[in-house]
């Protein structure tokens, strides 16, 4: 096994375990910490996919900013009470598990059929593939309009968050 395979299986196992922790933890704070761990291992997977700039953004924006926001809200609302139904098999759990399993089966059968098309994983990409410089050039040339629209979206989100969360203006 090459180093890439070892890292892929290690990170993949940690991601699945972390996601299982997110959906199974009783306490919301434990869910949030499992989600932070999942995001870190996902950043490792992004590095394996030659996307170092996206991996750094993942750690900075997701594991940093967004999860701190989540933890702030959890602690602000003091949601420490656990959910009432423990490890019982309720109807919604059975139906949800069946739906998720059906979707997974459909996705996997489709993905395994289209996978042989893309076979250029063996060749290493060019030197500037995935660097911050080439990503910036792409964003400011080909994707300039979406970039500006998304900055407007962030502005609207800031104003909207203040307006919605404030009790009285």
């Amino acid at each position, binding site marked *: 096994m090459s180093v*890439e*395979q070892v890292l*892929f299986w290690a990170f*993949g196992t940690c991601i*699945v375990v972390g*996601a299982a922790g*997110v959906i199974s933890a009783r306490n*919301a704070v434990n*869910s949030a910490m499992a*989600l932070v761990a*999942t*995001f870190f291992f*996902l950043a490792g*997977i992004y590095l394996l*996919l030659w*996307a170092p*700039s*996206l991996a750094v953004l*993942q750690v900075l924006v*997701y594991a940093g900013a*967004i999860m701190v*926001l*989540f933890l702030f*809200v*959890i602690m602000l*609302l003091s*949601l420490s009470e656990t*959910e009432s139904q423990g490890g019982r098999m309720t109807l*919604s759990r059975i139906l*949800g*598990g069946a*739906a998720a399993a059906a*979707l*997974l089966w459909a*996705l*996997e059968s489709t*993905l*395994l059929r289209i*996978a042989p098309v893309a076979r*250029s*994983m*063996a060749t290493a990409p060019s030197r500037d*593939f*995935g660097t911050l410089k080439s*990503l910036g050039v*792409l964003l400011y040339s*080909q*994707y300039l309009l*979406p970039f500006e629209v*998304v900055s407007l*979206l*962030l502005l*609207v*989100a*800031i104003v*909207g*968050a*203040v307006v*919605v*969360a404030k009790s009285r203006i």
Partner: protein
Amino acid sequence: MVPTSHYLILAAILFCMGMFGVLVRRNALVVFMCIELMLNAANLTFLAFARARQDMSGHAAAFFVIVVAAAEAAIGLAIMIAVFRSRGTLNIGEIKTMKY
């Protein structure tokens, strides 16, 4: 070398786990975290195809997904604070009406 299909199947597993959490959990904040898991699975798919096709457009798409997720988290958590302030719970089984 790890083939593209491995990355895609990992993304599919992550997406389905997020969907299971959205369908099953009752705490609105945990449901929100599971939505973040599903967004990350989509990002992983974008990056896997970008690597396979040696095309950086997938990186731009993943970048935009991260930005939209940040905006969504800010607005969604503000809405949750407003909901919790008006009715004192975040259990989605008890939140049935828009107006309270």
